[in-house]
């Protein structure tokens, strides 16, 4: 008798556990469904509509996607965003690895340095944009003042079409180093010390250990950082919005996809076109992320 009862009880317990399990993920799951999954489908639907006043809309088929193709500004914004992402992400990862490795040494005031590098992360992007706008000011900004000491005539960082994207990339890189550094640091600390000891006994130098031990063992972390960075780089908006005004002569070379999305959705009120723009961006990010996952086999070492 005893033996027959047992599995029954276990099953009941399992059911009970499943129920509580679902209950516990419910807040997150509901949030995800209501605030992400549902709007995702809604946006997809709206991208085929023509938006009128007060939430009225009418089916317009592929109109919005056609309008996108015909709009040189939108093409330009995708170009700007791609350049931004493909320069900013590798650059920021390289700098972050360097900083993380340096801050993984036993040096004085380690926590102070770590805090300093992490500060941009806890600062509001709007505030970062404001401060950098001052630094970049071509007449009174500190960057051009310093350049002037060396008799260099600094460019109009934010109003020269040739410089504006570079200026934005610098700010973008600077602001993500903190987050990347923290993640990479945790990756670094997972590398067993014994490997380095063994390597140095075998006569390996610092550079050799870095490329042969640190980088390969850090690659899963680097991969994670790369995926996350690409996704957020494609959504760059805040600094550009703060630093480049709509009457700026370099605006065409500076505006990102999300900047234009904001413009169409909230300034002009053409939510159908805005939905189409955001959906194309979503598709691009999706494809790029899939490619990254495919490519990881070639360079990521999970031991």
């Amino acid at each position, binding site marked *: 008798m005893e033996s027959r009862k047992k599995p029954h009880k276990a099953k009941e317990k399992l059911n009970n556990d499943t129920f*509580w399990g679902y209950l516990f993920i*419910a*807040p997150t799951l509901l949030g995800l469904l209501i605030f992400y999954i549902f709007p995702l489908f809604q946006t997809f639907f709206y991208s085929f509509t023509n938006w009128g*006043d*007060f*939430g*009225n809309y009418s089916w317009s088929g592929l109109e919005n996607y056609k309008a996108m193709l015909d709009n040189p500004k939108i093409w330009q914004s995708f170009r700007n965003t791609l350049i931004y992402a493909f320069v900013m992400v590798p650059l920021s990862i390289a700098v972050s690895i360097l900083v993380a490795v340096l801050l993984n040494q036993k040096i004085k005031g380690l926590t102070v340095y770590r805090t300093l590098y992490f500060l941009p992360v806890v600062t509001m992007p709007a505030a970062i944009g404001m401060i950098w706008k001052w630094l970049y*000011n*071509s*007449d*009174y900004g500190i960057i051009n003042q310093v350049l002037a000491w060396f008799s260099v005539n600094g460019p*109009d960082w*934010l*109003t020269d079409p040739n410089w504006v994207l570079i200026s934005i990339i610098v700010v973008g890189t600077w602001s993500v180093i903190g987050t990347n550094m923290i993640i990479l640091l945790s990756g670094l600390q997972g590398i067993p010390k014994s490997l380095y000891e063994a390597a140095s006994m075998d006569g390996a130098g610092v550079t050799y250990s870095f490329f042969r031990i640190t980088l390969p063992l850090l690659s899963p972390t680097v991969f994670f950082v790369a995926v996350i960075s690409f996704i957020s780089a494609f959504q760059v908006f805040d600094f550009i919005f703060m630093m480049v*005004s*709509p*009457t*700026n*002569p370099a*605006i065409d070379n500076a505006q990102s996809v999300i900047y234009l999305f904001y*413009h169409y959705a909230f*300034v*002009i*009120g*053409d939510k159908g076109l805005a939905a189409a723009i955001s959906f194309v961006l979503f598709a691009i990010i999706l494809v790029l992320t899939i490619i990254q996952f495919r490519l990881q086999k070639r360079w990521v070492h999970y031991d």
Partner: protein
Amino acid sequence: MKKYLLFISLIVMVMLAACSSDEEGASGDEETTIKYAYWDKNQEDMLKDLVEEFNKDNPTIEITLELTPYDQYFTKLDAAASGGGLPDVFWMNGPNFVKYASNDMLESIDESISEDDLDTSPYPDGLLGLYQYEDKTYALPKDYDTIGLWYNKELFDEAGLDYPDESWDWEDLVSAAESLTNPEDETYGIAAFIQDSQATYFNTILAADGYIISKDKTQSGFDDPNTIEGIQKYHDLIHKHEVSPTHVQMETTNATSMFESGKVAMMFQASYMIPQFKANEYTNENVDVAVLPTIKKRSNVIHGLGNVIASNSENKDGAWEFVKFLSSEKAATIQAEAGIIPAYEGTQQSWVEATPNFNLQAFLDMAEVSEPYPVSKDTSKWATIIQDNLAKAWAGQLTVEEASEIINKEMEEILASE
């Protein structure tokens, strides 16, 4: 088990809280409630005074004030309008007005005006016109802003020039600006900025006898030679006379900051800048304001807020009483004392006297020669096109004619689809 219960009840509470925001109080029979929505927190105290004053004569109408910051104001109002839950009375501005009026969201007040024999002559025509759509009036004006020529007295004294006055035409402006410009120490006669269309080129267009949008809101004015001349004259200050900082300079450091630091001697600026110039010690002492110079005539745009009534309001009579009161002489006087230019003629004196350092009479004189701020149903669609293309002209990437041609073409397309 207790822990789980606590947890569940917490979730339920959060959900209930989220659902209960739409709760509506049942209105009593004798007492009626009017919801009044507005966006400026600085006017909160003044509005409370107004409500108190209103209740002295109308004790049965209870007014609930609903403050929403400007950034969310129209988003919230749009949503309320879609759901049929607009507040009874609310602030409206020019750029959003036509959209609401053309979708039958607002109650026309012409009948009430004639029934009550209300005299609308104390309000500037340009301001009443701003809230008229298809020959119907939808709002009584609350306050307004006009444009003046601000100048730096110190720089004028140093150059030994007479201050600007009502005798000035465009040539006087240019010649004064030339004497005030000194490229070596980077001071300029005037800032020909375009970052604020209302304060700047809209006014030179009107003064040159041009127009931005036709009265019936179907035609763009950017193919009118007068319009182009008005823009060109303002553009020449940078590119021909070289008496203004360049567009790039003014993108880097905004024109108003240059004016406030004595780097430019004159600028077109609206009356809404008074608090800022008053708060700044340097400008409070050294600057003053005059009427705009004439090109073919003296003119400027006027913009002001209007109090409108929702078409789905359940208490239109009460709402009308309140709107009428808000734009009355008594309410105007209370506003003037609070530092806002009231729309009601003859009540502005206390507003002028409150700031003796500046010749604020100029703004009242400009109201006499004003035209409505240009709007249509989709104002922002073409407003950004004007802004984008003129920015290119200001940066020297297009000529004024080329920019006007593009603006005209695109603006006509937008107006045709409205």
